[in-house]
């Protein structure tokens, strides 16, 4: 396995873990909060609200414009 393959495998693993968490969070009585609940909790403060929106926008700007 090359270094490149290892890097791809790492990103794939993280993607699969995200998908698993997403599915688990939508099960009844799951201890894992949904992303909506998590962001809702974080965004009660203006600073984190602005920071999260900026992070979302920058990802788009970085990948599409640059």
């Amino acid at each position, binding site marked *: 396995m090359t270094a490149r393959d290892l890097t791809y495998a790492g990103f794939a693993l993280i993607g699969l873990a995200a998908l698993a968490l997403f599915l688990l969070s939508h099960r009844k009585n799951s201890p894992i909060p949904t992303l909506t609940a998590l962001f809702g909790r974080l*965004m009660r403060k203006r600073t984190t609200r602005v*920071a999260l929106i900026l992070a*979302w926008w920058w990802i788009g700007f*970085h990948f599409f414009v640059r």
Partner: protein
Amino acid sequence: MLLTVTGVVHVIRGAPLDAVIFLGVAAALIVTELVRPAPVTSPQQLPNRPLLVLAGSVVFGVAVGWTQFGVFSETMLIVVGVLALLAVWRQGDANPPESPPVRWGALAWVALALAGCGWEVVSFVHEVNVDDVSIGHPTLSDIVEPLLSQQYVRWIVLTAWIAAGYGLVRVGRRAAG
């Protein structure tokens, strides 16, 4: 604090525009917090119409992402960013500031985010700065950018991005209320 750190990281990695964006927003946020205008107690909520949002996102994705990016597309992205920031900026902290306790399961999301950021940093540090990405550790940008050069992938991802942004703004405005 986090925005300032991110801005400094962009300075270190030689991305002055990104640094200006993050440090500029951090400075504006500090000024706003110092002035602390009266929070809007009942911000107007954005409608939850999944089909309408999907349709709007697809139209945006096609209009902006169908061809290679140019002045129009870049301007549209900047306009969307400014509008999104304004939409969540005007509300103060939620009232009451106390919120329900975080469930332990939230740590799983935190761990995943840290793992993702950590893996990207490792890839960035070990990235071989040559044209041939078959050697070394490609960063997420190295992997995603060739995919985004394809028309269909570009507009699908752009559609998902704008829909996610709408959802984030909606959740943010609801949280502030």
